[in-house]
């Protein structure tokens, strides 16, 4: 993967986390006032973390410093569409929280190039999506 392709990959991941943050934001926007304050706080903080990871990947893309990223590309790419689709349909707050938490763990795995962390997060995500 050359540097331009690596930069585009980082941009792709950044957009994925942005999409996740948007979905969580939409959920909060629709349900604010109807869900308990503690659940709102959890999801709101998760959204902040998702935005933060999205910004991290945009910064990585700018830096074009994401060498070797292609190893993780397919693993993450396969998961993204499933997660996005699932989030649109899920009505239960605890499921949203589980997905958001594991997506955040996934970002940590990608950022630190930790294959074990990525695999664990993806496995947990698969389980949560089926709930």
């Amino acid at each position: 993967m050359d540097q331009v392709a690596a930069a585009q990959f980082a941009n792709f991941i950044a957009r994925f986390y942005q999409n996740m943050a948007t979905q969580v934001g939409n959920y909060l926007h629709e349900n604010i006032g109807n869900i308990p304050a503690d659940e709102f706080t959890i999801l709101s903080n998760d959204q902040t973390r998702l935005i933060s990871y999205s910004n991290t990947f945009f910064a990585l893309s700018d830096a074009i410093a994401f060498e070797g990223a292609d190893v993780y590309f397919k693993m993450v790419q396969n998961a993204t569409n499933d997660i996005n689709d699932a989030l649109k349909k899920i009505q239960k707050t605890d499921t949203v929280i589980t997905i958001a938490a594991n997506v955040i763990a996934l970002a940590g795995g990608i950022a630190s190039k930790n294959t074990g962390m990525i695999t664990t997060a993806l496995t947990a995500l698969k389980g949560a999506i089926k709930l």
Partner: protein
Amino acid sequence: MNMALSLRNTCLLFFCAAVFTRCANVKEVNAFATGSRQTLDKQRSEDFGYYAYYHDSTYLYHYLPDHLRDVDCHCDAEKQADAHIAGEYNQLCAYFAALARFADPGSYFNFAPIGSPVPAGTYGHVNFSAQEASYSAYVATALTTLTTTGYKAKKIKVFMAEYRDSVAPLIMLLKIRADNLAGRIVNLQLQLDRVADSLISYTTDKAVKMPVLFVYERKRKELDAALAHYQQRVKELETIIAGGQLIVDNLDNLHSASFKNKLMGFVNALASNYH
């Protein structure tokens, strides 16, 4: 003596005429290069850059600060990054001006100062990779060649070889930068929405709601406008990349009607955005 000078001037005139009549003389390439230069020149002068982004970030990502100093923006380095990016646009403008002049010798071309290549390094939150710096340096070198001795080559292939090796990759990197900044503006909007929603929904003081709403509405409009500019910029850069690639792919076919029609499609797309 006078006779010799006169003869020499005549020879020089004849040589210049020969050089320019042997230029490409493809008006469609000239139109594309002119449109690209105008578009890049417009993008260079847009004012929402890294400095403006980090200035806004300081406020929006710092929820409920204790003191005003907590949202001080130490963003001078980002101003330097913006200046470097403007320099890259300047180089690309000069390249397309040279190409326009070469493609149609009758067109006007001002050989303005090209500027120094962008040095690799970190400017606050903004990084210029060694690769980006090398593309910028290649473009600067190529421009010097193309605007002086390059004309003697009398071949558009010389121009397009430089395009393929350094100009196109630099435009691609600028497109990625523009797309990343557009993405970060969307994230700012998400953060703005989150904070405003939270303040409006959970405040116990109803007098707080309307000021929050007004500030939200104003900032949202500003960010919408900046985002629209950057989304437009990405589209324009994609058009320039596609048009340049079309010329590279048709170097032996520049006078075909099919090529000219396709290239004019890109010219029209750039023109519709420009006006």
